[in-house]
């Protein structure tokens, strides 16, 4: 390796010993505290699998039914546990099947280490069987990647991979290992990586930045917080809650920030963005100070940037320097891990209540309640609505469940209506919008937090993109609860077709199979709800069931998600119907 890294003093219990490259891979994983990995074997990774066989009492390898499933499962595992998720695949198609999961992890800052087998180094570039340039392919979607061609590189490269994946703003890392490097032997000696000279994961807190931010927050009359996943990734939830309570500032979340602050916290004013809540969207354009904490002003959050919070002074607490001023100009940037910056900021801000200002949020919530929420939850309307199902799950799980959602209308219903009391409870594909994410992610989430209830909420479209992972659930008996909200449409696309394409429903209607029979074919307990009267008992039976469970709920076919900020519109032009 050419790169200068620093490492902890020797942590390995083993003194130097001769092992194969493949065994070194396993020993590295053990040194990093890995006990669960997701993957799929194949020619170029067989030496590693042969070692996995020997180490099966120490590492649980979960055989997913597709490599994409392995990455999403590893993501689900990482998101709930805060640990690094690990996915393993062979070369060629095995490696390319990882791509969607890696891209998803990159945009949602999820720590992943992907290990791929590669053809022998003498075959590189020869278009050998199952050879793809996975390092080239994954370059733009990884935080770092590296091709190992010599066995002796393995310990240092894997140590570095784990360090990079989890430090600073986390992300996916890919290590590609040629087959000859897996077979060759090396003197194994493991040192955890503790620094890389060209990489500064945690910017030093600049006290004057924090002081300036405190000053503007203290003098604000109508301040508003928008928090993102940075609060969770930084492990700053408690600190953040203290900050919110001390300052009395109404706080809204991005989809990935959800669950960092309990849903029912009095200062939690809901979601910002395209299908966010009415009040925080409207008041984004009325606040005098906008405090962004660990979030990146995604376009789904901001709507039209030319009309986004132009009246407000923007304070931006962020660990990644490239995010400052990327989409929204930060008048008061505060660079650093929010756990560190919030700690300093907390002492500098003055207690406040902002009661009148908070009342404006409450008033607008009433409007949204009357026009949207009450209708979504109305049990007298003809067909069952998605929100009613989520509400029933809240009741039965008491808000303690991990909710894993896929992408589309049901995702918006799940995020808007789920009740969260604990952090790291919302697992969803935010930035990439990966349909097919939820089923495998739920497998990983349940394994990452085995004592918590894990409920996957999935649409009938996305479900069929990774439906084969039912096989993984069957084989591992991982007790996930799967709820399909079946409206027979690719609902979100259909909604756009209805609103913006004169109801030309091009390829959005789904002719679906019998989902219950399919689940039963995998020996998974399954049930179907076709009428509101069956819902309560069905959800109860699902939650009480000891083992995996599948529940299909037939919901209204042409329900639309509101509120909505139409594309190109300002957040304050959010529509309610």
């Amino acid at each position, binding site marked *: 390796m050419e790169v200068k890294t*620093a490492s902890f003093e020797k942590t390995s219990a083993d003194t130097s010993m001769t092992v194969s490259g493949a065994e070194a891979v396993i020993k590295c994983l053990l040194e990093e505290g890995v006990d669960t990995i997701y993957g799929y074997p194949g020619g170029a990774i067989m030496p590693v699998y042969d070692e996995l066989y020997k180490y099966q009492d120490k590492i649980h390898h979960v055989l997913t039914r597709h490599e994409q499933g392995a990455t999403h499962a590893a993501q689900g595992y990482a998101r709930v546990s805060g640990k690094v998720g690990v996915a393993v695949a062979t070369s060629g198609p095995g490696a390319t099947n990882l791509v969607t999961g890696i891209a998803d992890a990159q945009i949602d800052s999820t720590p992943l280490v992907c290990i791929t087998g590669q053809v022998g180094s003498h075959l590189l570039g020869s278009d050998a069987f199952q050879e793809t340039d996975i390092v080239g392919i994954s*370059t733009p979607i990884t935080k770092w990647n590296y091709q190992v061609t010599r066995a002796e590189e393995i310990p240092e490269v894997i140590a570095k991979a784990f360090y990079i994946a989890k430090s600073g703003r986390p992300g996916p890392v890919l290590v590609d290992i040629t087959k000859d490097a897996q077979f060759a032997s090396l003197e194994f000696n493991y040192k955890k990586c503790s620094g890389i000279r060209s990489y500064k994961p945690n910017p030093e807190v600049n006290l004057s930045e924090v002081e300036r931010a405190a000053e503007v927050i203290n003098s604000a009359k109508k301040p508003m917080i928008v928090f993102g996943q940075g609060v969770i990734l930084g492990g700053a939830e408690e600190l953040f809650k203290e900050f919110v309570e001390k300052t009395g500032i109404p706080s809204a979340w991005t989809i990935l920030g959800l669950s960092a602050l309990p849903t029912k916290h009095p200062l939690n004013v809901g979601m910002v963005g395209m299908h966010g809540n009415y009040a925080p969207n409207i008041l984004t354009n009325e606040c005098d100070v906008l405090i962004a904490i660990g979030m990146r002003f995604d376009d789904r959050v901001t709507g039209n940037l030319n009309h986004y919070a132009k009246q407000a002074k923007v304070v931006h607490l962020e660990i990644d320097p490239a995010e400052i001023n*990327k989409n929204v100009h930060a008048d008061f940037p505060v660079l650093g891990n929010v756990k560190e910056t919030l700690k300093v900021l907390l002492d500098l801000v003055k207690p406040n209540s902002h009661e009148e200002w908070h009342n404006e949020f409450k008033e607008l919530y009433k409007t949204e309640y009357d026009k949207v929420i009450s209708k979504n939850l109305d049990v007298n309307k003809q067909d069952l609505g998605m929100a009613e199902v989520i509400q029933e799950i809240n009741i039965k799980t008491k808000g303690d469940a991990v909710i894993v959602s896929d992408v589309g209308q049901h995702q918006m219903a799940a995020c808007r209506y789920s009740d969260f009391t604990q952090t790291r409870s919302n697992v969803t594909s935010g930035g990439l919008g990966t349909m097919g994410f939820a089923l495998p992610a739920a497998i990983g989430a349940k394994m990452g937090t085995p004592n918590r209830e894990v409920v996957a909420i999935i649409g009938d479209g996305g479900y069929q993109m990774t439906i084969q992972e039912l096989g993984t659930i069957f084989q591992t008996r991982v007790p996930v609860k799967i709820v399909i909200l079946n409206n027979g449409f690719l609902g979100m696309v259909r909604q756009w077709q209805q609103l913006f394409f004169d109801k030309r429903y091009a390829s959005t209607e789904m002719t679906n199979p019998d989902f219950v029979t399919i689940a039963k074919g995998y020996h998974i307990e399954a049930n179907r709800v076709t009428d509101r009267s069956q819902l309560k008992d069905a959800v109860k039976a699902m939650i009480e069931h000891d083992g995996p469970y599948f529940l299909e709920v037939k919901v209204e076919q042409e329900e639309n998600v509101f509120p909505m900020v139409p594309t190109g519109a300002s957040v304050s032009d959010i529509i309610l119907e």
Partner: protein
Amino acid sequence: MEKKNFTVSIYTENNLGLLSRIAAIFLRRHINIESITASPSEVPEVMRFIIVVEVTEEQIKKIVGQIEKQIEVIKAFYHTAEEMIYQETALYKIKSSEFLDDLNVQAFIKATNARIVTVTPKFFVIEKTGKRHEVDELYETLKPYGLMQFVRSGTIAVTKNEMQITGILEKFNTTNSIS
């Protein structure tokens, strides 16, 4: 904001794959790279890329941020032409027959500080180092004589101000033990 030429200087570890990682940052934003060079820098084992692009200042700030985010990038800077001392080198291959007959052109080469590097019975090779417009002027002058080949290097440049790379690296060395 108006587009202009910016020179990006990137100090990096000498690592396989970094060139494509950096190039991808431009590609993804549909920005054409005007010229690119990579070479060792003044710091041992540290590489320096010089990339010239035509973009707005707002764009280049964000791009430099994305470049610096790459693990093996030690530091990236951007500069305008005024802040740099820069040169390009070009080679011109011309038929000897055309060339020998014309004394004007020989005088012109001398006057522009170009240099004849190779003379054979069949062709001459002329080298010119200078600013882009000087290289272009000589190209226009030589074109009527039948340019057999022409090639121009990427811009190489040094800044007028000091670069702080050694300091950054020393700081890491003093706070960490290098393996």
